[in-house]
């Protein structure tokens, strides 16, 4: 079992919260930071009934700060032409409510935030798809970006190389949760099928366009009227996204882009720590507080054990993974 011998940086555990109750669960379970979004299309989890109004965010920040945790506000969609006010207001409110940072993707919004709220710490969202030192240094030098969330396409070795070359810019990587197969921030599959884009409207495969039909043969999932998957009676299901659809090619139904699988790096945390990563991010603002509590507790134990040079905990997270399966994804690129 892998352990860490000497690790100078203790990574922050950055945890998701879609609701005030989930924020409390995350903080109570040991999150160093919680990231949240406003209840509108300024964030990439603009789902029905989810997210925070301004009062809830103020209360959430107070709850977290009283317990030594930070709150980051994701304003990580791309402003629509003529509607930038909504995004500008979100940045102003994040700053006004004393959020610890804003997570932004759009270069115009980053410029606006840097110019109008110079005291607001800025993180570069994974949606910006900055995956090499030149791109990251540009954002840092021009707009004062302090941290970059790296796209989920790099190996651990590549992450180590990028982290070393962009210092003092901090790097944050995903350690658990759903995966996107497309270049981050550049996916058009959902908008092709539903007219709504994760990058602009903040919603991938909007629930309003999803239909499930259960029969004795199993469940059929449709997105925007397209049948995208069929699961047998006891087969684990996944999210109704086109990238995880099962399509028939050469008379064989298979996953062409990606299988329903969750990222889980619990076993390789020491490698990521050695790579010089500053923060570990857990995906899943759309998930319930039971998920948040379970995953945050597992990774709190994992990070603490790795930092102490102890064996990593063997925690089974199968029951909360998509499709009941787990992968280390691009970090190890085991398929090569």
């Amino acid at each position, binding site marked *: 079992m892998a352990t860490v011998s000497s690790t100078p940086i203790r990574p922050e555990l950055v945890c998701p919260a*879609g*609701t*005030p*109750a*989930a924020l*409390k*669960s995350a903080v109570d379970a040991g999150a160093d930071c919680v990231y949240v979004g406003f209840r509108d299309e300024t964030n990439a989890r603009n*789902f*029905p*009934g*989810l997210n925070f109004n301004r009062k809830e965010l103020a209360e959430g920040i107070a709850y977290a700060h009283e317990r030594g945790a930070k709150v980051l506000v994701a304003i990580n969609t791309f402003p629509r032409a003529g509607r930038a006010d909504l995004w500008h207001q979100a940045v102003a409110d994040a700053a006004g409510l004393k959020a610890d940072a804003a997570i932004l993707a759009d270069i115009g919004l980053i410029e606006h935030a840097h110019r109008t709220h110079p005291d607001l710490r800025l993180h570069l969202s994974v949606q910006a798809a900055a995956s090499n030192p030149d791109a990251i240094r540009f954002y840092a030098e021009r707009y004062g970006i302090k941290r970059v969330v790296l796209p989920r396409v790099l190996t651990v070795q590549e992450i180590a190389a990028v982290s070393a070359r962009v210092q003092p810019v901090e790097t944050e990587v995903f350690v658990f949760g759903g995966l996107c197969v497309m270049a981050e921030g550049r996916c058009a599959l959902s908008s092709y099928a539903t007219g709504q884009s994760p990058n602009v409207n903040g919603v991938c495969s*909007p*629930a*309003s366009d*999803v*239909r*499930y*039909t*259960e*029969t*004795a043969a199993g*469940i059929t999932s449709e997105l925007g009227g397209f049948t995208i998957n069929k*699961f047998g*009676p*006891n*087969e*684990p*299901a*996944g*999210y*109704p996204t086109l990238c995880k659809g099962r399509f028939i090619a050469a008379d064989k139904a298979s996953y062409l882009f990606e299988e*329903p699988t969750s990222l889980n790096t619990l076993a390789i945390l020491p490698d990521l720590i050695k790579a010089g990563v500053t923060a570990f991010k857990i995906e899943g603002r*759309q*998930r*319930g*507080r*039971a*998920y948040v509590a*379970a995953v945050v507790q597992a990774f709190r134990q994992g990070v603490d054990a790795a930092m102490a040079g102890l064996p990593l905990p063997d925690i089974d997270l199968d*029951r*909360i*993974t*998509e*499709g*009941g399966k787990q992968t280390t994804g691009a970090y190890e690129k085991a398929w090569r």
Partner: protein
Amino acid sequence: MSQGHTRGAVKPATPPFSPVLLLGMALKPVRPVVLQPIFDAMLKMIRRRHPDILERMADYGDRAVCIDPVDLPFVILLEPDPEQPRLTVLREVDPGSVTATIHGPLGMLIALAEGKVDGDALFFSRRLVIEGDTEVVVALRNAIDGAGIDLIDDISAELGPLARPFRAAAGAAAGLIGRMRDDFETLRSALIAPAVKDVDAQGMRIAQLETEIKQLRKTARRGGVA
């Protein structure tokens, strides 16, 4: 168990063999209207203690949702109009009269409401069945999960001086149900043990046959005699 549901071509979640299933059978002769005051009180409590649920559901006020505890002979109709919400217990609901239905065992639905289990995980594992308008179901799930409901705490807070005995009774009931659930599981395992043994044997035989077929195909491809 043939219960009252929004049944159509849909196969709802199978009820687990549990104490609730027996309770459901015992409750079959009871008319839903007799239970209605419990649900009226529950709605009143939710409005008072968790007003944010209806606030989060504001965009979906005109969309009725049927909640179907598959181990009980009733369904619950939720009409989330923020001004005049209604929670009605019925024997069954016409599928055409609701925008969505959620099927699942009672214990799981309560655990979901209390944030003890993750809704997506239940869906992935197929223990929760959803039909109809997915948007209102997602909104309801998020609204309830976000409220931080704790049924024992919530009911205790409504009972004033009776809170302490209620907590004691609830704790004893939870312990009893837990023990009964264990006993039911033992009973279930004993009842199905012969069938499981047969299925295991059949599975092994099928795996053996599949290996033989693969071998024969390989031989045939090489031009050998199968």
